[in-house]
């Protein structure tokens, strides 16, 4: 079985998201794949043009509809299902856009979905992380019927530019588009500090900070380093930091260049959330704390002395 792959483009109406180029790279891992990219938009020309210039893309399908002004899963899914007929694989990015949409498509098709594809072993066999990356699972689809997938962003490079752009076809799809779901607004997350999920540097505090007041020394150091601030679940449960700052399996799973764990003992569920960080620094008064097992650099001592000292030194 080779593949006829349909990739659902993620975009904001004007610009193609890099997530789509990563999906193309994933799709190229399917031997002999013919790759089409679907762009659902009000006016698809600009985005379709960008998709057509990705190496590996065979053609771009422009699906234009006034209802496509915002990427609503309930609105997009029936249009993509109407397009899906000839395809063996339907892929989208494992971003909030793709995760929301692709499973709805899978539901409408009654097809299996492979979430967070990190490797393609054959047209039917894929690798994906489970248990928040504490295990890697290889799954195999039966080979008859379609496979829907979301592509893990950290596992694939973006496809490069094509030498000649792929043809763009405007397609009219016949699909019943629901009106039961309506876009109201979107607002960028508001914070003076960098976003925890995407920051290159993250400083997190644990229960040893002792209070919400205690966290101030982290905010101060973070401001100097341009870092985001996170917290362990224990610190969140104790009320020292809001839930949105929680790093770990039940919070945010992050992969910064530098992660500094301050007064965090290193419960499993926390370690799960940081294990893809490039460099982990642990500062803790207990030299036996499990956090030191994963730390690249460990410092045993009183955080209330060490943190202000680091701030003076950098």
């Amino acid at each position, binding site marked *: 079985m080779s593949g006829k792959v349909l990739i659902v483009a993620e975009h904001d109406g004007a610009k193609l998201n890099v997530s789509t180029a990563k999906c193309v790279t994933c799709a190229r891992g399917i031997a002999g794949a013919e790759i089409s990219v679907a762009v659902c938009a009000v006016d698809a020309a600009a985005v379709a043009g960008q998709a057509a210039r990705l190496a590996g893309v065979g053609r771009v399908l422009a699906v234009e509809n006034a209802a496509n002004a915002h990427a609503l899963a309930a609105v997009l899914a029936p249009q993509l299902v109407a397009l899906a007929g000839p395809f063996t694989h339907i892929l989208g990015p494992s971003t909030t856009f793709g995760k929301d949409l692709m499973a709805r498509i899978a539901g409408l098709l009654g097809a299996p979905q492979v979430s967070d594809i990190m490797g393609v072993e054959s047209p039917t066999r894929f690798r994906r992380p489970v248990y928040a990356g504490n295990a890697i699972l290889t799954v195999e689809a039966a080979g008859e019927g379609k496979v829907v997938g979301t592509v893990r962003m950290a596992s694939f490079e973006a496809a490069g530019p094509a030498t000649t752009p792929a043809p763009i076809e405007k397609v009219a799809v016949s699909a019943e588009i629901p009106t039961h779901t309506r876009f*109201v607004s979107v607002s960028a997350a508001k914070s003076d500090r960098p976003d925890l999920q995407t920051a290159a540097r993250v400083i997190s505090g644990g229960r040893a900070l002792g209070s919400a007041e205690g966290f101030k020394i982290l905010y101060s150091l973070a401001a100097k380093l341009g870092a985001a601030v996170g917290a362990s679940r224990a610190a969140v449960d104790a009320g020292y930091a809001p839930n949105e700052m929680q790093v770990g399996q*039940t919070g945010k799973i992050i992969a910064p260049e530098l992660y500094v764990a301050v007064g965090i003992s290193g419960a499993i569920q926390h370690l799960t959330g940081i294990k893809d960080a490039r460099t982990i620094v642990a500062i803790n008064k207990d030299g036996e704390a499990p956090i030191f097992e994963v730390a690249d650099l460990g410092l045993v001592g009183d955080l209330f002395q060490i943190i202000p*000292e680091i701030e003076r030194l950098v």
Partner: protein
Amino acid sequence: MKRILVGIKRVVDYNVRIRVKPDGSGVVTEGVKLSINPFDEIALEEALRIKERGGAEEVIVATVGPADCQQQLRTALAMGADRAVLVQADGVVEPLMAARALLKLIEREQPLLVILGKQAIDDDNGQTGQVLAALWNRPQATYASKVELAAASARVTREVDAGLETLEVDLPAVITTDLRLNEPRYVKLPDIMKAKKKPLDIVPLATLGVEQRQQLKLVRFEPPPQRQKGIRVKDAAELVEALKKKGLL
């Protein structure tokens, strides 16, 4: 009656260190603490709060899984759910099968809202809510961080990559929960006693007319690559020096 249906899943507790079985057939679950999936606890908490505000009259909690999932349903009843349904199914429960079973319960109970966790922390599929909404042909509002219920619609704020998105969905609808939505209550001892008297129905999957079916074969589980052991530094100055050397400061 205005009902909310909450779907929960039993998973390996988030505090357990996951170990892959040496034969690669799965992860070790024998003798390991099993709990309600944390995102599903948030779903239940939200349903209870809606009921406490007068937005619903009954909260039904349901799961699809083996007989001993009753324990997690009892915990959900102790949290405050009014009754529970176990759709008994052995073997792997894929999102599509779980959604088909939940759809049968929806047809029976006619809820105005179905709330699920955004994903389970075992298989990390993150599909069931969306698949259910698709099968039901109703709206979905995933990754909810705020839910405001009106008579015939709900306004849901969603945590998306771009920030916060607000949708308006007609009821009935499916909502899946993100972390920021609420902090689930702790169960108190008297509530555990009370929960023993609450109704818990056991319905075999087959009697719902849903086929036990697995579309993805689980070929092999492997442990992830391990991190190299690091070094200790003696003070802040040495730490800053080491980070500068790595080009991190």
